[in-house]
């Protein structure tokens, strides 16, 4: 395999400790403080179709690209996108009106009633709102990324796989500009976490063939870290976004990051 050297041109970070460089230090569990997706996503119709994790992801991608001057000169079919996410499906709350009209006095759901009276009460885009590739779908449309791409749902490994595949796409010459990272939101879903505190966050990296002046470089290494870093268990459960958020925080603090990819090698991120 002949690889090109790859650098990180910018990072977009939202995490419970804050946004951007503010989010790189300290620890705080729960929501991203002060996050308002309307600051980053102008299309209100789209915004209504985005879950919290999608809003975080699409916003982080906009932040990251906003820090890279001239990225638009890369042809759209050479722009790639690799995203890690968690599939939680459609929002159950959106079904409640339909379920209510179909509920028997016994509390059981009557499927015939559900079909006859419930279906018309469900928003036509209910499925679309629950798609797990929505960060990729919306962000690729907003920024005209037409090139190679993939969306991974592998639990807490999702973000690592997205970063690995994003690096590989640039290194192997399949793309000249890649956005890679993950987004997730678990605040309010603590019941699913067996007592863990839910967190939320998104971190996306803009990767491209190495350029002088880019703040960070990535290189394959034989000894990627394996397993979580206890120091970083300070923001609550971040799901798919866990590793990209950790990597972004460390890089922004001036520290190196190593992690194991899905294959035999790992990746090392470091300051240029």
């Amino acid at each position, binding site marked *: 395999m002949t690889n090109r050297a790859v650098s990180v041109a910018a990072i977009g970070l939202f995490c419970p400790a804050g946004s951007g460089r503010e989010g790189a230090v300290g620890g705080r569990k729960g929501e991203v403080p002060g996050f308002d997706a309307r600051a980053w996503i102008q299309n209100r119709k789209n915004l209504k179709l985005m879950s919290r994790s999608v809003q975080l992801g699409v916003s982080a991608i906009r932040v990251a690209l906003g820090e890279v001057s001239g990225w638009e000169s890369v042809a759209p*079919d050479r722009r790639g996108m690799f995203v890690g*996410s*968690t*599939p939680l*499906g*459609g929002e*159950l*709350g959106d079904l*409640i009106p339909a*379920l*209510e009209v179909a*509920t028997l006095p016994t*509390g*059981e*759901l009557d*499927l*015939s009633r*559900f*079909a*006859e009276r419930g*279906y018309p009460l*469900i*928003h*036509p*885009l*209910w*499925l*679309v709102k629950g798609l*797990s*590739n929505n960060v*990729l*779908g*919306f962000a*690729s*449309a907003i920024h*005209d*990324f*037409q*090139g*190679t*791409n*993939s*969306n*991974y*749902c*592998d*639990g807490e*490994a999702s973000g690592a*796989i997205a970063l690995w595949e994003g690096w*590989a796409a640039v290194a192997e010459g399949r793309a000249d500009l890649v956005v890679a990272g993950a987004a997730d939101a678990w605040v309010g*879903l*603590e*019941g*699913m*976490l*067996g*007592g863990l505190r839910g967190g939320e966050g998104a971190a996306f990296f803009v990767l491209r063939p190495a350029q002088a002046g880019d703040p960070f470089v990535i290189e394959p290494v034989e000894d990627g870290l394996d397993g979580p870093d206890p120091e970083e268990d300070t923001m609550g459960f971040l799901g798919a976004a866990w590793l990209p958020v950790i990597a972004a925080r460390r890089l922004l603090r001036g520290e190196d990051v190593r992690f194991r990819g*899905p*294959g*035999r090698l790992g990746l090392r991120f470091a300051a240029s």
Partner: protein
Amino acid sequence: MVTGVGVLSAFGRGPNLLEQGLRAGRSALAPLRAFPPLGLPLQVAAEVDSPLFDAPDFPDDRKASLAFAAVDDAVAAAGAPRLTDAGVWLGTGLSTVTVRELNEDVMPYVRDGVLDRVAVDADLRRNHVAPRRHLPERVTAAVARRVGALGPQSTSFSACAAGAQAIANAAWAIRRGEVNIAIAGGHDSMIHPLGVLSFIVLGALSPTTCRPFDHGRDGFVIGEGAAMFILEEESAAIARGATIWARLLGAGNSTDAHNATAPHPEGAGAALSMRRALVDARLPASAVQHVNAHGTGTPLGDAAEANAIRQVIGAEVPVSSIKGAVGHCIAAAGAVEAAACVLAARGGWSFGTAGLSDPAPLGVNARAEPAEDAPQVLLSNSFGFGGQNTTLLIGAPGFTPS
């Protein structure tokens, strides 16, 4: 190299049944059996009518059972190769809750038209396994455990392109030396009231039948299935004396960068995906002898795809869709259709398009009937909501690029 195939489709369990059905030009669409039609615009479906073993760790998750059966069959078909170092790349779809789960986990907490989230949360703290049982990576991990594969794992969620995307990702991993052998494919089942709900409210299902590329096409018929492949690096496959079912020549992908559910009207993303696959395989468009279209039978989708095929491959190459025969298997569609292409490449035939009787003037050579035309290279398209597109190029076992 494809050295093993396991597939479950509406024709039944096993590659032979899929081949016999498609080669005879039959359709496996049948009246819905999984649940009463309930007055919904859903008369027919493409259900897998084969006994499936229980998967105790995956209650109510039919697509997990489909995946395990397909994996077992693929491994057996490949001659039970050593899989310790294998990677697992699966594509899967959205797990909507079942009616039973709704009744047990949700309905007790609906009060005055509102979901009592505090009560739900309190109950979940006692049983936090329930809502996470559908997370798709669990099936990927279970497949790896089932066959003793210790290599990398990845779960592609690219809507209806997921199965094809997983196969592409595995092929690229083999090419760059991450593994020598992989299990790759897709699995999905949304034939239950809440699964079809999503497509009914979108207006994507045909109230009658699926007619890809037909003048009267009005949507797809819901299907289910799984297809798994053993993919091996060529020299390793030859060294162990594996039977070569077909060659995976290349793959490409793209995004429409256009709309969450509607395809790019000119098929720009689809065209780019096909071009990328050709570049990846180092083949000219003229090498393609048959196109398996995504071909859902929706008015907009077929028109956009036909436009893309005409641009990239031309107007003369035969184009067909098996969705009129096995329905739309959603996230598994790309894998089940790749299996059809592998069988066609191996057997020297190509499939037609069940449901196509009055071809629409879309500018491609949409073909209704199967043919014994010995295609050497087949191109297979898969497109998903969110605008993700994946194309696979599959060659006959003896095909060598000139």
